[in-house]
């Protein structure tokens, strides 16, 4: 493999919280040198002055849909979407068909990713068999097969006793639990946030309490068991408050927020655009503000997409009949920059940390830092690049985005995985 | 209405309108040999005040009142699809049975005859009159249907570029009949 020299960029270090102008030299899929004015014979040179060179982004929460739902996305197309979105590693949720509740499915996903994947794929195993919330999966087997975390994402482990045992066992095995917090008796047949907009639209609401009671429960169980708990897609102000309080008293809880939950409110549902249907639902302006505050003060460590692609015909139906989920990989970085960095809510290194080193540490994977000897997973961001979201340009199959037409500023322009350029936005560098 | 139009001539003034209506009132009485079973129906909108006035003149002449009704023909028009603007739907109010009556339909201007055709349909939906006659203050020609007025205030030859504007006190706060021409 040819050497790659990324020259003149602004190197963002999310650990040391700083930006320095530095070249990066890649050889054999690893980072072999950094520093100014590196000159290397025979290297392929990309000049990126004025651009930001960051560790390749890690998305802790995606749905690649394979096996089982290949009409919506595959490992091949989902990782293409990741590459276009600036992500070099993704953790994929186990709600496939069959569910990734045994080592065979984990092994299949990893093999498929190796064969067809454009970026690194880290599978997440299920907590319970079939994600039915009843019997524990063979967690040790899942870990040996390569699962990096456990989750019944898309569903809640409704039975507190099962969740309690799962946390005890997972802690012993050494895998974190990623909790989808939703009391299904409270969310019931709800399709959007319960509030003024649901009242006007006559749509059944999902109260914020449906999330908050489960966040509270899972924090208590994590506290009781000492199991590392990661709360997926925090959407409600009350959840942010609960997590903040738990962290203050030392509970091993981390949390993520999605770009749509820090950007959109339930007002977006008013036109019955099924691309706004997501679980947990888009909430109020106060909730969005609380999520932003949580991101700023560190209560929320991670920004993850919850990339949930659906085939167009699945979404082209009545709101209540549409499945939950949005495609998120290809708009995430642009939204983080536009909504959080350009507005001063997060510094560039804080934003980068929430999409690199923080999720990598939660998952225990050797990613997310640009240090000598590290895998050469690198993303280059052009902070001045402006582009309107156009799902027709998406690399993935999932075009179900509520952000169509939205102007983003600050987008990934080069994605490097293992020393190989897997995506370039438009121009030559 | 005045947009893109200029006044070409005045055909009738207030006194001219009065004389024409008085003459029509006389003719109605004469043709029907009195007022027995005669009823007047004004076509919305300017046929309505004209019917009211004719009723008054007939009463002055004969000392008897005839019943007066109001007819909106919007729902009977044959040009609903071709008009960009639709006339406001107005009330139809014929407070007497039309069966076996001698109905005199009253409109301000007779032109293509389509309004009268619609009015005939509308009346027949209300019942079966013995006879239907037609009175118009102005006949401007250019008929598109085999329709003829029984009573005409004034015949005015016009071109297709012209518009006959009847202005009445009740609807327009003035009293005259004009010919307007498109610019």
């Amino acid at each position, binding site marked *: 493999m040819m050497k790659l020299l990324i020259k003149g960029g602004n190197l963002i270090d999310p650990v040391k919280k700083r930006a320095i102008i530095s070249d990066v030299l890649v050889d054999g899929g690893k980072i072999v040198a950094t520093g100014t004015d590196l000159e290397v014979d025979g290297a392929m040179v990309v000049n990126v002055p004025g651009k930001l060179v960051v560790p390749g982004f890690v998305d802790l929460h995606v749905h690649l849909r394979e096996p089982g739902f290949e009409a919506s996305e595959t490992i091949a197309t989902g990782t293409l979407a990741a590459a276009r979105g600036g992500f070099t590693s993704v953790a994929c949720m186990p709600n496939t068909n069959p569910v990734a509740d045994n080592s065979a499915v984990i092994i299949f996903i990893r093999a498929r990713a190796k064969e067809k994947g454009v970026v690194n794929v880290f599978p997440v195993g299920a907590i319970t068999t079939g994600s039915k919330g009843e019997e524990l999966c063979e967690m040790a087997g899942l870990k040996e097969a390569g699962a990096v975390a456990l989750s019944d994402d898309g569903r809640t482990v409704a039975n507190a006793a099962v969740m309690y045992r799962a946390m005890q066992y997972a802690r012993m095995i050494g895998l974190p639990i990623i909790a989808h917090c939703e009391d299904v008796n409270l969310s019931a047949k709800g399709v959007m946030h319960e509030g003024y907009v649901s009242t006007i639209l*006559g749509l059944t609401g999902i109260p914020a309490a449906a999330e908050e009671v489960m966040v509270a429960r899972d924090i208590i169980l994590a506290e009781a068991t000492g199991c590392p708990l990661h709360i997926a897609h925090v959407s409600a102000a009350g959840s942010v408050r609960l997590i903040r309080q738990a962290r203050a008293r030392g509970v091993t809880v981390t949390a993520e927020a999605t770009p749509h939950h820090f950007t959109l409110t339930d007002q977006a549902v008013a036109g*019955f655009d099924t691309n706004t249907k997501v679980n947990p639902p888009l909430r109020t302006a106060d909730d969005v503000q609380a999520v932003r505050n949580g991101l700023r003060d560190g209560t929320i460590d991670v920004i993850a997409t919850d990339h949930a692609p659906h085939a167009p015909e699945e979404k082209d*139906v009545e709101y209540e009949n549409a499945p939950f989920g949005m495609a998120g990989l290809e708009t995430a970085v642009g939204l983080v920059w536009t909504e959080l960095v350009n507005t001063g809510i997060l510094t560039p290194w804080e934003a980068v940390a929430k999409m690199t080193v923080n999720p990598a540490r939660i998952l225990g994977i050797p990613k997310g830092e640009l240090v000598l000897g590290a895998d050469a997973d690198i993303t280059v961001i052009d902070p001045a690049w402006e582009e309107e979201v156009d799902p027709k340009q998406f690399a993935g199959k999932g075009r179900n985005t509520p952000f169509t037409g939205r102007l983003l500023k600050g987008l990934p322009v080069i994605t490097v995985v293992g020393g190989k350029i897997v995506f370039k936005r438009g121009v030559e560098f | 209405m005045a947009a893109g139009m200029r006044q070409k001539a005045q055909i009738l003034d207030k006194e001219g309108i009065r004389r024409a209506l008085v003459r029509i009132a006389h003719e109605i009485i004469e043709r029907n040999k009195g007022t027995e079973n005669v009823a007047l129906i004004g076509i919305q909108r300017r046929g309505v005040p004209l019917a009211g006035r004719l009723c008054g003149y007939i009463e002055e002449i004969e000392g008897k009142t005839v019943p007066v009704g109001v007819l909106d023909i919007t729902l009977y028009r044959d040009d609903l*699809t071709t008009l960009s*603007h639709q006339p406001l739907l107005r*009330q139809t109010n014929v407070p007497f049975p039309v069966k076996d009556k001698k109905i005199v339909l009253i409109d301000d201007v007779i032109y293509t005859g389509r309004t009268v055709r619609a009015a005939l*349909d509308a009346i027949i939906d*209300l019942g079966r009159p013995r006879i239907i006659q037609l009175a118009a203050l102005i006949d401007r020609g250019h008929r598109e249907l085999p329709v003829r007025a029984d009573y005409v205030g004034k015949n005015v030859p016009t071109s297709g570029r012209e518009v006959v504007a009847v202005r009445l006190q009740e609807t327009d706060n003035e009293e005259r009949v004009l010919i307007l021409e498109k610019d």
Partner: protein
Amino acid sequence: MKLKRKDLLGLAGLETQEINLILDTAVPMKEIASRPVKKVPVLRGRTIVNIFYEPSTRTRVSFELAAKHLSADSINIPAAASSVVKGESIKDTARTIAAMGADVVVIRHPLAGAAQLLAGTVEAAVINAGDGAREHPTQGLLDMFTVREKKGTLAGLKVAIIGDILHSRVARSNIWGFLKMGAQVAICGPATMMPPEINRTGAVVYHRIEDALEGADVIMMLRIQRERQKAGLFPSLREYSRLFGLNRERLFLAKPDALVMHPGPVNRGVEITGEVADHPRSVINEQVTNGVAVRMAILYLFAGGGTDDEAAD
């Protein structure tokens, strides 16, 4: 004055002038509907398709009569509620409608937003005859027509809407409609059946029926469905009736000339006593009569009978 939209999806989006136009047009329509020969040719040759995904004899027959009075060809497409459950989308139906060359489509659907989804897909004018709990604009308009006919105006009236507001599209349409026309709207029902933040519409929320009825010019009772009890939204019909039912004593809390309304079908002895339903102040039967006139006006206007005062005289 002309309508500013292709479709009638709800009263939330309608302008006051448009509401007035529809109500004004319904006045002559009511005269036609009272004639011995109830027929005018205005919509001759127009095709109106009725698709009801929910059983509703009352509304469907009202629309059918309205179409017949205006000489339109009206077709009923039987659509089983099961096809909705199966996930067969409204868009499949839309393709059929387009092929039929319908001018107006009247749709009743159990899911909110279904009429809007259809409207975005077909060229025909779409009339929402009820979409889930969202809106039932033709019912709202006929209620407003009935009140205006009795009271002369809507501005300044106090309208009390009592019952299961959460699941009621009739309540939502009436809240929007009456508020736009300058009436005050008081809504009252169990806390479990009051949609959140409904007060932001401008309606005032009460949980004691006595407070809601005080000084009311119009009392609108909503039907309570027994299934809601099974869903845990209220403890029993007996307690519901005791707290939120309209009886003779409570009727006297309203103005002496207050109207009693109900979109039907009435659960006698539950939300309203038989005695009050048959009371001289009850206009429940007139609502049905007016429903035809108002739907005639709606079909006429949305099938192309927009209006302009002078130009076409």
